């Protein structure tokens, strides 16, 4: 990694940060397409990748701790899930304002640019739009009364409050079994969505966190919806009702079909 050059190029006040670790899914393919989409719609905003390098990124950080021992059920099999590096986003990001994105989030518009313009230092989605059932709702975290925040799109500005949030997030990951018991969530799968939700509530002294919410829902396709194709501004999807097209930014859970479509 050429750190010297990257830091020069990326002395920018805003940018995207993606984490890329290949597993049974070739996440590099997804990341490359995610970057392509971002660069088409927001050409002035740099994108850096942490983890396995991706050619079309503006910078790559390879010295990222991978966290090997988390697993998730994909289909009907438990497979390695390298999702925990994102807690390092604050220290890794070269930007003042960063949006950390999952590589399975495909931008088909410049909607995310609004988050950079907004002064709110920390923002995440809370409501989700289920594309299959056409419903908008919040997800409760375990058996608690807390609404889950999604770590899929995480915008932050570097400041003391946000640094504290990342410290709390790290602490939740280190003490996962304790928090899993406390909130009645699975001890066996460490989910960033839950970890950021707990950290955010701690940051706000367990008060209302709605000021940290991205005001529109995250548009998400479930596993049973497959991706048939992808253009710069459209995603072609398929489920048991047939083919349909979406023209908004989309978080795609069926990664296998997304990989094929990329």
């Amino acid at each position, binding site marked *: 990694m050429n750190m010297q050059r990257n830091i020069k190029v990326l002395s920018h006040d805003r940018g995207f940060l993606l984490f890329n670790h290949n597993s049974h899914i070739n996440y590099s393919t997804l990341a490359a397409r995610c970057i392509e989409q971002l660069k088409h719609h927001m050409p002035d905003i740099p994108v850096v990748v942490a983890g396995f390098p991706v050619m079309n990124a503006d910078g790559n950080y390879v010295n990222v701790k991978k966290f090997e021992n988390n697993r998730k059920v994909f289909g009907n099999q438990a497979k390695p899930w390298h999702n925990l590096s994102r807690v390092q986003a604050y220290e890794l990001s070269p930007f003042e304002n960063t949006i950390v994105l999952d590589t399975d989030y495909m931008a088909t*518009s410049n*909607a995310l640019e*609004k988050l950079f*313009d*907004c*002064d*709110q230092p920390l*923002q995440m989605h809370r409501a989700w*739009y289920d*594309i299959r059932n*056409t419903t*908008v709702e919040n997800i409760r975290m375990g058996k608690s009364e807390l609404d889950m925040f999604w770590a899929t799109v995480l915008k932050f500005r570097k400041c003391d409050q946000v640094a504290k949030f990342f410290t709390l997030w790290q602490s939740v990951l280190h003490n996962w079994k304790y928090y899993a018991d406390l909130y009645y969530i699975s001890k066996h799968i460490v989910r960033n969505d839950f970890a950021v939700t707990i950290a955010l509530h701690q940051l706000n002294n367990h008060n209302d966190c*709605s*000021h*940290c*919410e991205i*005001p*529109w*829902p995250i*548009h998400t396709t479930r596993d049973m919806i497959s991706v048939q194709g992808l253009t710069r501004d459209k995603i072609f999807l398929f489920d048991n*009702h*047939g083919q*349909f097209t*979406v*023209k*908004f*930014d989309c978080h795609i859970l069926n990664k296998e079909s997304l990989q094929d479509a990329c």
Partner: protein
Amino acid sequence: MFELKRNLSLLDQRCNALKYFVYEGGMWCADEKLLSYCGHIKNNDVIIDSNKNPVMIKNVKEFYNKALQQHQLVLNEYAEEYKSIVT
């Protein structure tokens, strides 16, 4: 019928996300309520944005124009797409 309903819901979602705009670091939904509210505020009034942050509106006319422009943009998109869905 299912397809029609789904396509209209997808359109509605798309337009809902598009309605948001940023002014002086605050974020608002350019809906009918905000446009109407603009008629009741004056320069340098403080109003609350979507994230519950107080933001001073230095120039109400500019703010209103931005909101209206965003609102119209979304409605035009909606009308165009609606036509293609129902015909």
